[in-house]
């Protein structure tokens, strides 16, 4: 589903990704962990071309992400959820959700609304359809953001620390939605510090540090017996 080979990314002189190789299978849930500044977000953002890789090869759903490819075509298939929600503040929850299907997929209004309401029901916010984001809690906003990404019927979902900006009591409701998605067979790449989530739904965990993949494997295995000393240090800090 996602194939990454020798991915490099530099911001000016700062080399953030130093050769990432990684393969995500269909319906797989890959959890990416690592210290702050290790390049997790940059890696994720390369996968839907929010960042232009400096070099390397990325193939998503059979389409190579070279510079000729229509990036919008890729982004339609790859949903992304951000740490800071990034809901459109001038639109209600349902308007946030139907916008992209309407303007990008040219779905007609009734159909888009119907799908939008179904998605809101799925994330438990059917009755909040007509609320503006500033009237929703952080957890609710993030669930709307997930519904918004799903409305494009993506084949892959990227989550970048989607619960880090939330008050602790709201983390669970967002993780629950993500777990449902994983169970339904969505292909997911999830950057998170929620080790419980990684254990429960992660098929594989990738530990990134200083722009490379230091270690990867089955979550319980990696958490119980980290092979790389840096993984050990990192895990001892957060577990």
């Amino acid at each position, binding site marked *: 589903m996602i194939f990454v080979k020798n991915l490099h990314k530099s911001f000016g002189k700062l080399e953030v990704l130093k050769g990432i190789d990684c393969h995500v299978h269909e319906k797989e849930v890959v959890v990416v962990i690592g210290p702050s500044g290790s390049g997790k977000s940059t890696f994720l953002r390369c996968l*839907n071309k*929010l960042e232009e890789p400096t070099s390397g090869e990325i193939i998503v759903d059979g389409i190579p992400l070279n510079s000729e490819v229509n990036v*919008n*075509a890729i*982004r*339609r298939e*790859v*949903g*992304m959820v*951000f740490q*800071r929600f*990034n*809901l*459109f*503040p*001038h*639109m209600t929850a349902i308007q946030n959700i139907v*916008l*992209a299907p309407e*303007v*990008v*997929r040219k779905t007609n209004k009734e159909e888009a609304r119907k799908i939008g309401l179904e998605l809101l029901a799925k994330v438990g916010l059917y009755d909040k359809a007509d609320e*503006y*984001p*500033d009237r929703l809690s952080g957890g609710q906003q993030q669930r709307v*953001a997930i519904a*918004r*990404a799903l409305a*494009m019927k993506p084949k892959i979902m990227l989550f970048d620390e989607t619960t880090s900006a939330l008050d602790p009591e709201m983390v669970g409701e967002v993780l629950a939605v993500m777990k449902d998605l994983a169970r339904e067979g969505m292909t997911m790449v999830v950057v998170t510090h929620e080790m419980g989530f990684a254990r429960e739904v992660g098929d594989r965990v990738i530990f990134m540090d200083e722009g490379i993949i230091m270690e990867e494997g089955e979550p319980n295995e990696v958490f119980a017996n980290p092979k790389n000393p840096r993984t050990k240090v990192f895990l001892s800090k957060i577990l």
Partner: protein
Amino acid sequence: MNWHVVVDNMPILAKGALLTLELTAGAVAIGVVIGLFMALARLSKHKVVRAGAIAYIDFFRGTPLLVQIFLVYFGIPMLLKWQTMPDNYQYTAGILAMGLNSGAYIAEIFRAGIQSIDRGQSEAARSLGMTQAQALRYVILPQAFKRTIPPLGNEFIALLKDSSLLSIIAIQELFYTGKIIVGRTYQPLPMYMAVALYYLVMTQLIAQWVAYMERRLGKNDLR
């Protein structure tokens, strides 16, 4: 002082004031369109497009409006090799000159508004597969526009006042009308006070309208 002069000439002044409003409205319409394009060009990733916008903005902000009015007024007939000037040409030239000028200021207002929108907004839009243009149209500009209302209001007020410069090409707007009456009546103080009052009323009206728009749209500003 002869206040009768003012009272007698109120209707003529009102006619001048109306023309002032019309000239300003025309210039605003041109200025907003140019301003939007220049702001987008100014933010373009293409160097040449950006440089063009910067040159335009610098020129119209860095030279006097009075000079620009003359450049347009005399320049167009020369460039188009007209033998005589068409009737009412001065209105077209006047509105165009003011529109070109305000386009530069409005471009900067729009640019600041667009840049004030969090980058996450366009990233979210782009991550949903929207093109740059769609992201602008549906996500960025609606939010940016609200924030530009107060500075836009200021620009409209400045433009209305500056339209008095058009008297130099014999457009009978408010100031020109006042000057003519003074020439006839030799009552400069009361007449120019009346002219000032007319300007004040009009600028106040714009300010009120802007405040109203701000309140109306401001209600969902946090949204």
